[in-house]
């Protein structure tokens, strides 16, 4: 049976960003394995995150530099173009610049069955294409987890192609995040979903820069882990 007093201690430390070492790893495990399925813990997590938001009011407001909004507006133009090329509510968020440098990720594109997706880029043929790839002899299919997603990594080494497919409906308040693992270090690539039905992602990476992919369910309100331990495979 789970010790909720201990869990609450970890959640309190987690929302404050004050955990480190084994406590951070244990919180990571709880957040992927236990919290998404535990109503009590989800309520506690929400309440504590609400407190950290309220504590933000303790800081005196300061006018940000005048250059900040124009800087963002320039990026918003680029961001909107990217969004329009992707699939509405289930878009992939481009990874942090650090991820691009570290693992050579050059971008992501999404292919799906178009069940709820308005984009013309997403067709059943795309999903069928990945399913077809799975039947070919030089294709490697590796279960990716977490449970419930039935996610698979579909790679075609001879053509340097890599896909992820599965069903990505996270628990309320949570989101699936994709990481690239190289030499025991997992680096954030992007958010996945929520998506309706089976979807497939074409992951454009330098194959030499990725040993494997890692998919984890994480609280949507928190930023992705900059670096996570690949040993903490998500199962929730």
């Amino acid at each position: 049976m789970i010790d909720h007093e201990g869990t609450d201690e970890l959640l309190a430390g987690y929302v404050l960003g004050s955990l480190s070492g084994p406590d951070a790893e244990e919180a990571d495990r709880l957040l992927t394995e236990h919290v998404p399925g535990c109503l009590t813990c989800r309520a506690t997590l929400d309440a504590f995150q609400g407190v950290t938001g309220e504590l933000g009011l303790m800081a005196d407001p300061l006018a940000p530099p005048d250059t900040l909004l124009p800087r963002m507006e320039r990026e918003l133009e680029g961001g909107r173009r990217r969004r329009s090329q992707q699939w509405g509510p289930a878009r992939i968020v481009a990874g942090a610049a650090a991820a691009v440098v570290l693992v050579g990720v050059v971008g992501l594109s999404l292919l799906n069955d178009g069940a709820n997706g308005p984009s013309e880029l997403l067709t059943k043929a795309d999903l069928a294409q990945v399913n077809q790839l799975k039947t070919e002899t030089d294709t490697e299919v590796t279960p990716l987890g977490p449970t419930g997603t039935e996610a698979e990594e579909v790679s075609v080494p001879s053509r340097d192609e890599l896909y992820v497919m599965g069903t990505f409906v996270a628990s309320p308040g949570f989101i699936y995040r994709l990481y690239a693992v190289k030499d025991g270090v997992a680096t954030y690539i992007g958010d996945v979903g929520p998506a309706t039905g089976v979807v497939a992602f074409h992951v454009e990476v330098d194959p030499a820069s990725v040993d494997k992919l890692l998919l984890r369910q994480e609280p949507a309100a928190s930023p992705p882990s900059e670096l996570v331990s690949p040993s903490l495979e998500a199962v929730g």
Partner: protein
Amino acid sequence: MAVQDTADDLELHRRLAAGDRAAFDELYRRYAAQAYGLAYRVTGQQMLAQDVVHDAFMALWRAPEAFDERRGSFRTFFLSMVHHRGVDQVRREQRLRARTEKAANLDPLEDEDPADAVAEAGYLSVRRKEVREALTDLPAAQRQVLEMAYFDGKTQVQIAKELQIPLGTVKTRTLAAMRKLRALLEEAS
């Protein structure tokens, strides 16, 4: 007033999720000063604070579905995200170099006019007062560990060392502080 502002935030968020730039600008107008003030308080550096606010707003634009209105207000969601990113920045800085005493040596501010910012975010002042009162109601020992974690970006291990108390005590005080604050803030609202 606060209820109306919360409803307005939700409507702005829905428009933003649909790609409405005007909604983004309005949310920026509402929360940029508070977010920048918080990011600056946590990081102690203007450049880092700018990056935090920039990243938070861009994340909001790129992944608006991260906010779920069933889990709390937009304001607490967004400021929680800003805080999280601020702490991440602090940790990165800590890894790069030992930090000087931030609280005593905040980067001198240039050109800002806090009075303008406060005027723009005036509807938040009532809640700010309630939060300050709630924090004041905490036992001093609990408030201390909470402030060291939240505003100084210190880990519980660092706090335990600095205060020369067991790590378990830091955890216990942190949890007690969070629970009491939660109750006080719910009562106040």
